[in-house]
């Protein structure tokens, strides 16, 4: 902190180094995230190679990679990944819209909360597998039922976070809106929604995770393609490399979608006065 050199020079130098430093930091942060997965993979491979793990229950990463490459070469991989991604996407959108609408109303109107919330909360703990027969019954075995089931999974965490976000909005800010005679809709759009954005975004991230989880149950409903289908197929045909390959694909794609949402979060919340948004 003790600096004795010409100040202008210093400022310039500092600016440059700040920029380069930021780039470097980003790359390093990124690299840091790879350390543990890589270590795990190496340990795992070694364990299989030295017969500490039985290959028939836990094939080596290289075997699994081969399996994935094989699928890719056959051309079926993209089909599986694509259709699952598509289902999750549509289900996610549907679930989000439903959660935003219901969540806003429940969060805003006390009586509506008393009316609807108990039922919604009760539904929340019904496992994905339990929905399967009901959805087949209601909507058949087409895409609609699959997408809807995913939407159900996505719905709950988003709903929960929205309601709590809205109910946690500072009264002080809402009052500002009241002074301007905002309609409830304006209040929601201009104050409540942005104020509960952090909570909403966590809900989205939670929701997309659940979307990926529900996809397996969804693809139990007569799917002939998809990652969930691969997983179940692997279980039904006792093929561990297929099971683990699909798990790894789930992890990778799930992580990617989460990364997208997380970037969105960082961008949308740059106004937050927290330790990380300091200049």
């Amino acid at each position, binding site marked *: 902190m003790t600096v004795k050199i010409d100040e202008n020079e210093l400022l310039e130098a500092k600016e440059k180094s700040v920029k380069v430093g930021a780039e470097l930091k980003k790359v390093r942060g990124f690299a840091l995230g790879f350390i543990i997965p890589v270590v795990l993979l190496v340990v795992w491979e070694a364990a299989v190679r030295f017969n500490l793990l039985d290959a028939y229950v836990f094939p080596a990463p290289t075997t699994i990679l081969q399996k994935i490459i094989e699928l890719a070469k056959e051309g079926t991989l993209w089909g599986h990944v694509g259709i699952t991604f598509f289902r999750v996407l549509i289900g996610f959108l549907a679930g989000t819209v439903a959660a935003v609408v219901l969540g806003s109303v429940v969060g805003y109107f006390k009586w509506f909360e008393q009316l609807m919330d108990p039922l919604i909360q009760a539904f929340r703990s019904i496992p994905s597998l339990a929905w399967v027969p009901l959805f087949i019954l209601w909507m058949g075995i087409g895409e609609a039922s699959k997408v809807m089931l995913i939407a159900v999974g996505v719905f709950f965490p988003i709903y929960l976070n929205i309601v709590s976000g809205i109910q946690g909005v500072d009264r*002080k*800010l809402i*009052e*500002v809106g*009241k*002074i*301007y*005679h905002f309609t409830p809709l304006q209040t929601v759009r*201009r*104050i409540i929604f*942005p*104020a509960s*954005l952090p909570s909403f975004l966590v809900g989205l991230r939670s929701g997309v995770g659940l979307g990926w989880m529900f996809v397996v149950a969804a693809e139990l409903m007569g799917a002939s393609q998809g990652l969930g289908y691969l997983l179940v197929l692997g279980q039904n045909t006792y093929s561990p490399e297929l099971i683990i390959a699909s798990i790894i694909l789930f992890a990778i794609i799930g992580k990617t979608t989460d990364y997208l949402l997380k970037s969105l979060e960082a961008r949308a919340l*740059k*106004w*937050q*006065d927290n330790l990380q*948004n300091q*200049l």
Partner: protein
Amino acid sequence: MLKVKQASRTFNDGLAGFKNISFSIQEGETVGILGTSGCGKSTLLRVLSGLDQDFEGDIELAGLGEQPIGMIFQEPRLMPWLTVKENILFGAKDAKKVDVQEYLNLVGLSDFGDHYPKDLSGGMAQRTAIARALIGQPGVLLLDEPFSALDAFTKMQLQDLLLKIQKSRSTTMIIVTHDIDEALYLCDRIFILGGQPGTLQAQMSIETAKPRDRGDSFLASKKAEILDVLHIDKEVE
């Protein structure tokens, strides 16, 4: 235009808030409210603005036209996710029609339009809140210690700005303040609240024409008078 009859709003089983307050205010009048900390001044403004409906008594607000009430809260209450400019526009009915830059200049924030509230100093945040209230061009303006975080000169400039606006738009204003000089410089009438829950202890009219001279000896005598009232009140308490 504003008539308050026997209004009370208390908290804590009648231990805080204000009680039995009656007064009436003409259109275009500027009223100052002085009083010890915690005697219910902010609560009174909240009741007048309609934010707090749980009061007793009777309040009549006549002929308000389409212009709503404007309010400057005791805290800046800026939306943290909006920049200064957007925060100011928050108060405008039609964001496209108004010139934000003008208001930014008025409160001396010309260069800070694109800052987020977290990067503002206390006084700058307060000035943003002032600009937000002014841009709506309200018919009645309620101000809760609007200049408390400002230095002497910025304060004087903004006081003059208020006078100008009051004159051109003949806005009715109720100003809560702790600065007696400020009340004397701006107001046609001054109410003094005291006690817990607060009641109206005294009322005085200042009939000197505006703009007034800050060094005016008549005002200085009034100041002594007010200090007296406040002091007695404090002693009694």
